[in-house]
């Protein structure tokens, strides 16, 4: 089967390449001239030190975590409707994690030094440790492993057809026979991997919420509310993205590849639930801010409703409210169809992006603990071009991956097959692998934590963060070892 490229697809690819090129040029400008080419400025001197890059990092990571969490939950229930969620969600989540990682890298004053220093000296005491280590090792790598394992049966079928991807498909599906015992192992490995990945996904998102919400002089109740809003809205945004992606897949790759109407309805209800939790929390956070005795906090809360940020705040709130009302109406009438849920999903994503922007930027310009004059922040074309370039790169990588592992399923494994009993060797090898990964991660963490180094924060062993990350990567491949270990004769 020779893949054919339509004119529209070629034009889209060309556009993505142009955007990527402009993004690379903009990033080169940033590297050559320094961050002076961005809209960020010194705190207290009228600016914000974190801007669009960090906002987009939070946005992408939140989406990725939520989408991947949906995939994990979908893998628990082996029914045909939710199975499509996992199939569509995994590549989308991987693209989001890649985007998050690249946004963070673009934000660093010295990106190459960041890679070196983080590998050698990263400290677990900093919330950033969890995000950078988990995004790379668990979110990105773990999702890749999970995605390939989940689709090996389809890959084996696709590998029988002639295409440019055939060799790679055969490599990824190597050893797959489609036996009942194999199906059993696959389902078991998928279940446990999903179960382990859920808390591992929540950790970087919570750490990022802490980075966004914890501020000097901010009272604890307000901080907790803002952390909760950040996590809830990230979840809502992820569901919104998933709904959009599912609709797009259904339209482009055919009905079989897309999500069934029942799947849309379920995701729509989950989105409605998340929104109904988020909206009161947003209101409570704003009231807590306005009522705070701390001048910096009340100034920040007033700024959110004032001339500068008020229109954005109310627009985001209106988007969330309208989305919730649409979903509620649809749920009451029993008509939560694709069109309605996708519209709600798009509204939610816009609101999430604006919310993250306000949460990060408004306190820097209007909520400093000392009475500095208020500041402002507007991203320059450089920042916009870099972010769009990252988005284009993620899409460009997503497109061939869709060719490699098409969305359309060829094999359905609804029934749980019985496993072959007494495969002790496989169990022992898997256990050793898991414990080895756990030990590596634990040792890496303990060494990175620099316990007992007094006031000097030198690592006990430079490079221990890498040990932690490798340990995490070993841990997330446990499912692959269990599934791929050759059967004993």
């Amino acid at each position: 089967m020779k893949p054919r490229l339509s004119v529209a697809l070629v034009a889209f690819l060309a556009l993505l390449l142009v955007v990527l090129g402009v993004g690379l040029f903009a990033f080169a400008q940033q590297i050559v001239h320094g961050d002076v080419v961005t809209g960020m400025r010194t705190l207290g001197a009228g600016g914000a030190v974190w801007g669009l890059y960090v906002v987009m990092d939070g946005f992408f990571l939140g989406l990725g975590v939520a989408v991947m969490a949906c995939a994990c939950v979908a893998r628990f229930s082996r029914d045909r409707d939710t199975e499509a969620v996992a199939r569509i969600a995994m590549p989308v989540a991987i693209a989001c994690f890649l985007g998050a990682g690249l946004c963070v890298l673009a934000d660093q004053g010295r990106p190459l030094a960041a890679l070196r220093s983080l590998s050698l000296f990263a400290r677990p005491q900093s919330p950033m440790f969890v995000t950078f280590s988990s995004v790379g090792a668990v979110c990105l790598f773990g999702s890749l492993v999970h995605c390939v394992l989940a689709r090996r049966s389809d890959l084996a079928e696709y590998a029988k057809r002639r295409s440019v991807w055939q060799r790679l498909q055969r490599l990824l599906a190597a050893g797959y026979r489609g036996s009942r015992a194999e199906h059993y192992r696959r389902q078991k490995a998928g279940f446990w991997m999903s179960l382990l990945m859920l808390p591992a996904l929540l950790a970087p998102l919570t750490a990022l919420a802490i980075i966004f919400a914890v501020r000097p002089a901010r009272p604890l109740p307000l901080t907790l509310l803002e952390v909760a809003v950040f996590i809830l809205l990230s979840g809502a945004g992820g569901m919104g993205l998933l709904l959009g992606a599912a609709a797009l897949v259904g339209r482009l790759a055919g009905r079989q590849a897309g999500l069934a109407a029942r799947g849309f309805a379920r995701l729509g209800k989950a989105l409605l639930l998340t929104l109904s939790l988020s909206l009161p929390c947003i209101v409570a956070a704003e009231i807590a801010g306005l009522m705070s005795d701390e001048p910096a906090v009340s100034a920040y809360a007033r700024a959110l409703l004032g001339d500068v940020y008020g229109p954005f705040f109310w627009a985001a709130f209106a988007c969330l409210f309208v989305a919730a009302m649409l979903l509620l109406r649809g749920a009451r009438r029993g008509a939560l169809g694709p069109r309605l849920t996708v519209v709600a999903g798009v509204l939610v994503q816009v609101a999430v992006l604006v919310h993250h922007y306000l949460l990060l930027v408004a306190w820097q310009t209007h909520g400093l603990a000392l009475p500095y004059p208020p500041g402002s922040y507007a991203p320059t074309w450089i920042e916009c071009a870099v972010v769009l370039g990252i988005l284009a790169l993620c899409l460009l990588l997503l497109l061939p991956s869709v060719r490699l592992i098409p969305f359309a399923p060829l094999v359905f494994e609804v029934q749980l097959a019985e496993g072959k009993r007494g495969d002790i060797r496989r169990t022992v090898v898997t256990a050793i692998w898991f414990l080895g990964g756990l030990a590596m991660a634990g040792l890496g963490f303990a060494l990175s934590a620099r316990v007992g180094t007094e006031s000097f924060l030198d690592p006990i062993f430079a490079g221990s963060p890498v040990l932690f990350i490798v340990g995490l990567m070993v841990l997330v491949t446990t499912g692959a070892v269990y599934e791929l270990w050759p059967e004993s004769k």
Partner: protein
Amino acid sequence: MSGRKLTTRREVLTLAAASTAGAALAQTTRAVENAPAPVAAAGEPPHRFGMAIDLDHCLRCQACVVACAAENNVPPLGQERSALTRPIHWMDMLIPDEGSASSELGQGPAPIPCMHCDRPECVKVCPVGATYLGDDGVVAQIWDRCIGCRYCMAACPYSRRYFNWSEPAWPGDDPSSANPDVALRPAGVVEKCTLCQHRIRAVLERARIDDEPVTDAALQRLPACAATCPARAITFGDLADPESALSKLAKDPRAVQLLGRLGTGPKVFYLRGRR
């Protein structure tokens, strides 16, 4: 390899593993070399350096601001860069916004350096340990290790950290007039007041060589800002020494700690109000 080609997969893998291990070892060695050196010698009582600024004496002449920049190789911004509002002033004047609530220092301008907190937020959040609380109580920075994430800037309640938004520009592109005791910082790193740590180290080293104790008099005007202040409004000293002038000033009823309620334990004390 005596010109022999690598033929087997095992040889290639062995060479790759050896190269990786070598590179990792080199990085580790370099990392250890870059580690901050302790200020106090073994067995020496720990110091807790701090500062007191008497606002009743302060003339707001900004001599401290200029002296600090000259001593610590903070390059002049120039008109064009000033317009971009990305200044670097390790010692700066806080000029409160007219519409805002006053700080503990009142509505007038006040010189504010880094507070060198006992529980510094910047140190807690730094992902790579580029900023640390030394055994002398100074919150210092390892320029080479900083990755420029600016988390410390976001966490500091006093906004007393500065990012090098671009490569520092020197008059005539010639940094030869720079102070050789203070390293130049490249673009993309965060920098801050070090309480003129190089001067502190020199005094401690001299005392060690002469085998004499460090006197409070030798410390009181040690940092560039304190040495330059025409009104002698800035007093530097060791808070660990209860007899030092600074310790006595810190107990003065006029003494306040900026945002002390946040629990960061600033070691810069302001004196104001009752003279």
